[in-house]
């Protein structure tokens, strides 16, 4: 999911290549000038890559990302491809994709932008040396370097966006995990779900709780939902209103809602606030709520050894809530 969302969100902004190019003044003439220098780049690529990694491996902050010779060999190969890519003479979607992937990988392995951008400066210096030693005409060398600088900055803007998007996606995943943790819907029995609400219920959380519970009810074909609020520290008008809304929506799906875990304090608050929960079956304790829920689905808790024969007499699918 995260991948396609990343792509969606990037599509909106990042793939606006002309706009990005215009901002760093990267023209077709720049790309053509670099393409003409490709033979020079190819001739010196090995030394360029070696020099670059000498810097990265010489710094403790970056060395730790290259634990062994195998990794170094691999990153050198992709760095080589990257350097040569600067002299390809074209910037298309595939080029952008490649730069974005690099940024996302750096975010994943925890290479902070400060090191990444710092390394870019080193790259530029190496390329500057290359151009001024390899292009005899100083005016031409200066022009080539200006073009190269535009392209490298173009790449850097992409890399930073990729960082941000990767970070956003990580955040989104954490939020989802947190949401699931804060709405632990438990299947007590066939057709009976329990939602123990613990902690503060604000509007955002109340919405998420409702959405999650409704989806689970349909998935499980639940006939009864027990909403236990023993773990909710403060029940004020707003919280009561959220609880009422949740039970109303639950009922619209054809599922009964039972509210349990109502302390004396909460009962007093609800009545004093004039909250209409009289229509909802309520029980002081969860255990009693579970008994009631089982009765609604035609089951009951019996002492061990007692026959299960008369379970259904208690109530049918509908009426027991009033008992």
């Amino acid at each position, binding site marked *: 999911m995260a991948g396609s969302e990343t792509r969606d969100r990037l599509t909106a902004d990042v793939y606006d290549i002309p706009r990005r190019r215009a901002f760093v003044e990267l023209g077709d003439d720049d790309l053509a000038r670099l393409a003409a220098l490709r033979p020079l780049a190819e001739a010196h690529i090995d030394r360029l890559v070696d020099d670059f990694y000498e810097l990265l491996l010489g710094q403790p902050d970056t060395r730790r990302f290259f634990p062994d010779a195998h990794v170094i060999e691999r990153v050198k190969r992709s760095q080589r491809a990257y350097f040569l890519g600067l002299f390809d003479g074209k910037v298309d979607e595939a080029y952008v994709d490649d730069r974005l992937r690099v940024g996302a990988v750096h975010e994943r392995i925890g290479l902070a932008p400060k090191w990444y951008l710092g390394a870019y400066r080193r790259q530029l210096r190496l390329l500057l040396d290359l151009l001024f030693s390899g292009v005899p005409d100083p005016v031409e060398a200066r022009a080539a370097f200006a073009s190269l600088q535009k392209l490298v900055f173009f790449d850097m803007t992409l890399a930073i966006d990729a960082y941000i998007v990767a970070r956003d996606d990580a955040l989104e995943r954490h939020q989802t995990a947190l949401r699931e943790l804060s709405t632990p819907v438990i299947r007590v029995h066939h057709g009976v779900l329990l939602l123990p609400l613990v902690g503060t219920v604000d509007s955002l959380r109340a919405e998420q709780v409702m959405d999650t519970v409704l989806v689970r009810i349909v998935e499980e074909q639940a006939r009864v939902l027990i909403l236990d609020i023993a773990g909710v520290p403060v029940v004020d008008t707003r919280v009561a209103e959220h609880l009422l809304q949740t039970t*109303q929506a639950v009922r619209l799906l054809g599922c009964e809602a039972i509210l349990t875990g109502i302390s004396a304090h909460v009962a007093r608050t609800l009545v004093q606030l004039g909250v209409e929960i009289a229509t909802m079956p309520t029980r002081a304790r969860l255990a009693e709520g579970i008994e009631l829920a089982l009765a609604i689905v035609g089951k009951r808790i019996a002492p061990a050894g007692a026959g299960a024969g008369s379970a259904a007499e208690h109530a049918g*699918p509908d*009426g027991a809530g009033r008992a």
Partner: protein
Amino acid sequence: MSPIPILRIGTTLLCSVHVELDDALAERLQEDVLGTIERTGATGLVVDISGLETVDSYVARILADTGRMARLMGADTVLAGMRPEVAATLVRMGFPLEGVRAALDLDHGLALLAHGRSGATEGRRPGRTAP
């Protein structure tokens, strides 16, 4: 011919909405259902709305009213299969359709009707009126 067919099984009417309801179609549905109850003397009605992706206040009101009207004509009505996002939206709008009986799906709806006819339930929430 109505775009939303109404099936009769014994004394129960089944109506499954699988097309998007605009205002005119919702009104037509109400008319057709009440007409069929009148003709057949049906005592139960299950409206399956699992195919409805959007139910706004107007359509919700027509569905709820239809249930009330059917009840006046002696037919218990169950709304079956409402989607989670539809239920959440109606409630958030302040439109909880109180007094409407709901079921998880068609089977559950038929079971509720059968149960109601045996006399166990009659007006589940007495004293409550819809907004």
